[in-house]
């Protein structure tokens, strides 16, 4: 697992993709921080974080798109799948490498808050709540992206596919409100990621919500393992 994590992380930074991701994250968050916080004279960074919610919906799939698909196309997966490593270790290593790059991209966000705190008093709970929500969200995006990447040999399909799925997940709320059938709309709402994310932005750390995000990540990682397993038995 460690070997795969290290290789993938190095690969992010031997190609431009890692630098571009981190730079794009810092640049967009910087612009949004200026517009929504400094420009408006607001100390609440929730708007900045929420904007990143959407930006990452597009950015994270770019990170994860090649993780599984490229290997399959180049037939390098034969090395990993015939090496004495478990599939879970393999998938976790890849997930963590994408997550590490994601962390480098978003670590700047609480720093904006800390900088603000030198001049005005800010609500720390909201700041950390927002950040925690974003960290968990990034994990969901990365796990989902990894899963989609394992389904195809084409990086572009992997990227667009996971962006689309991210959008569907986001729209689940809106969908729920127009569905007249009570059970369906309730179910959709209860698995809505956005609702739970909003709780974080209010500075609420609810254990159920944290577990929910971790479960969603675990499910997608598990599904990725199943895809690899299934390919073997096909």
């Amino acid at each position, binding site marked *: 697992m460690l070997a795969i994590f290290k290789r993938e992380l190095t*690969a992010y930074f*031997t190609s431009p993709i890692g630098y571009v991701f981190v730079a794009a994250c810092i640049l967009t968050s910087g612009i949004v921080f200026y517009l929504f916080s400094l420009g408006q004279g607001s100390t609440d960074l929730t708007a900045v974080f929420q904007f990143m919610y959407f930006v990452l919906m597009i950015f994270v799939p770019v990170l994860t798109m090649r993780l599984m698909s490229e290997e399959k196309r180049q037939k390098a997966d034969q090395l*990993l799948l*015939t*090496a004495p*490593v478990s599939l879970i270790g393999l998938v976790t290593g890849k997930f963590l490498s994408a997550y590490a790059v994601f962390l480098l991209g978003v670590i700047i966000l609480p720093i904006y808050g800390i900088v603000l705190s030198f001049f005005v008093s800010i609500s720390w709970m909201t700041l950390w709540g927002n950040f925690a929500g974003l960290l968990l969200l990034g994990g969901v995006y990365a796990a989902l992206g990894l899963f989609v990447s394992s389904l195809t040999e084409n990086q572009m399909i992997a990227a667009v596919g996971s962006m689309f799925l991210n959008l569907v997940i986001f729209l689940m709320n809106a969908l729920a409100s127009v569905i007249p059938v009570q059970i369906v709309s309730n179910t959709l709402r209860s698995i809505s990621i956005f609702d739970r994310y909003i709780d974080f932005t209010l500075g609420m750390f609810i254990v159920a919500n944290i577990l929910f995000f971790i479960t969603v990540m675990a499910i997608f990682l598990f599904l990725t393992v199943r895809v690899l397993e299934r390919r073997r*038995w096909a």
Partner: protein
Amino acid sequence: MIEVQNLSKNYGGNKAVDNISFRAEEGEILGFLGPNGAGKSTTMNILTGYISSTSGSAKIDGIDILDDPIAAKRRIGYLPEYPPLYTDMTVNSYLKFVYELKKCRLPRNSHLNEICELVKISDVGRRLVRNLSKGYRQRVGLAQALVGNPGTLILDEPTVGLDPKQIIEIRSLIKKLGKNHTVILSSHILPEIQAVCDRIVVINKGRIVANEKAGVLAAGLSENLSLKIRVEGSESEVKKLLVGIHQIKRVVALREAEAGVFEYEIEPKKDEDVRREIFKKLSSRNYPLLMMKSNELTLEEVFLKLITGDIYGNVKDEEEGK
């Protein structure tokens, strides 16, 4: 040691591998011979745990690849048909990655250097895999299989893409490795298998059609060897003389090989050695015998004979069928 028992692999209704069994002992180089699409790569992919079998078992040193895949995989070095390389890495960093991936415990730098020396890639260590030629990639792939010094090596067409000099080098390397490893080698190039392997398994359409020691295979099929001789002197006279030998079934005059020298094909009766008789008869009449060779079947012919049942007949049928 590799033990394969009643292994089958179906893709839908298509049987890629059909109930094959064989063994490769330690210190033995087993050649897997078959035309393209015979099931060689599929079998190797099953042995290494890349894909599963539909039924049957494959054991490496007594460990079933399905029961304990990690322990079994640790004993195998695998060079697939397409070397599984990361084009964005340098050769050195790639091999270090493989070293860590295989959780190798040998001293790292000396072990990797030794392998690089062995397959002769030390001079490209700092180059990106992307920029290497096919021959070098193939050798990096072989190096990858050797990392961790596994007892069993499974090499799928290891000399593809190499130039003739490299082919000879790799073959002698494989022979050297074969002394203390179990090696399975696949190829559709017959002289290669003939040059390297102790035992040959011929596979066609997913079935084993022969499993013999390399020498036995060629000899066993070449019963009733015919002879080719060249004799100086009148064609009709010599032919008459040869037909007079009672162990000879048939004599065919082929052509005039040199001025005044004719070539004949001689088919002896079953289990008769006619060489001495021919010499005596010819020398008694002062016809100089300039050449005599037995038409031993080449492995090519053996192979065709095995998979079609006949050297020429069925191949022709297949072509007509198209």
